[in-house]
């Protein structure tokens, strides 16, 4: 009960600053700009973490969209300089959702069966400390060739 009430309140809070047009969007950005400086990530791929989510039929059907949204949100929230992109099928359809993580200066590692729990482990352990976690797809693996 309490929760429902709280949610309702949140919604009304939100509606006060509803963005419905490009003009609203611009206004909000200008307000933001004056307050804090908008971080423009220097996208130097050599120095940041790269996460690629396999987003083909097999991946999407197994929940790759949710996993990718999780990485986009959490890496930012946890202040990790990273770029999250999507790629096609890596050929491990049995292990979807699969993701490839490339830490700066290291070879990429592919993780399979990535649900939100494992995604969290990958961020906390592999990305933050370099410690490997379950689900690595053990092959002599080269970086994905988009040309396939």
């Amino acid at each position: 009960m309490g929760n429902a009430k709280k949610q309702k309140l949140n919604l009304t809070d939100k509606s006060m600053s509803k963005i419905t047009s490009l003009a609203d969007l611009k206004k909000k950005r200008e307000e933001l700009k004056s307050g804090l400086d908008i971080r423009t990530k220097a996208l130097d791929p050599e120095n940041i973490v790269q996460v690629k989510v396999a987003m083909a039929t097999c991946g999407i059907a197994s929940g790759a969209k949710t996993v990718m949204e999780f990485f986009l949100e959490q890496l930012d929230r946890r202040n990790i300089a990273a770029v999250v992109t999507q790629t096609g099928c890596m050929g491990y359809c049995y292990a979807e959702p699969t993701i490839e993580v490339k830490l700066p200066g290291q070879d990429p590692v592919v993780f399979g069966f990535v649900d939100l729990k494992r995604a969290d482990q990958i961020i906390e352990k592999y990305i933050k400390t370099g410690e490997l976690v379950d689900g690595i797809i053990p092959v002599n693996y080269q970086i994905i060739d988009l040309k396939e």
Partner: protein
Amino acid sequence: MKTLSLNILDIVQNSLRAKADEISIEINESVPEDSYQIMIRDNGTGIPEEILARVTDPFVTTRTKRKMGLGLALLKYHAELAGGDLKIESETGKGTEIKATFLYSHIDRQPLGDIVGVIVLLLAANPGINFVYQHSTESGKYRFSSVETKDYLELETLNERNLLSDIGGMISENLKGIGASGIVYNEKVL
């Protein structure tokens, strides 16, 4: 695929693989005409004629990593299941247009689902691609264009989490405004 928006996300991957840099997604729903249409248009490399005729066969793909492709086959299946069909027009070097039609009222027509999440995801993952999303119902029409948004905001890229989240909110509000059906509004887009 549980929702049509996931099918759309899947088909757009074909366009991306075909090196398209302009991808437009258009949805028209009409209760009086009992129709629900999804169109996906791109300016990619197009589908060679010899493959075009067989492209919805699950065992046809241009990929070399595995010997089958299910994206179009699945969409065709879902369309036919819901009293509609799938049409593909394509010209090598010019692009491809996919048009899936469904009966609006058919019990097997899937809901659209989290389309806003799909658009935001595509924008986040492909900053260099121009996406247009257009949705029309009897009460109105909404159009979102990533190029126009970039130009208006005088930005090089939309790839920033707060901005993407606001864009998601903006699209949601507008889709609610025209009464688009079957959409799951994820309150926390990103």
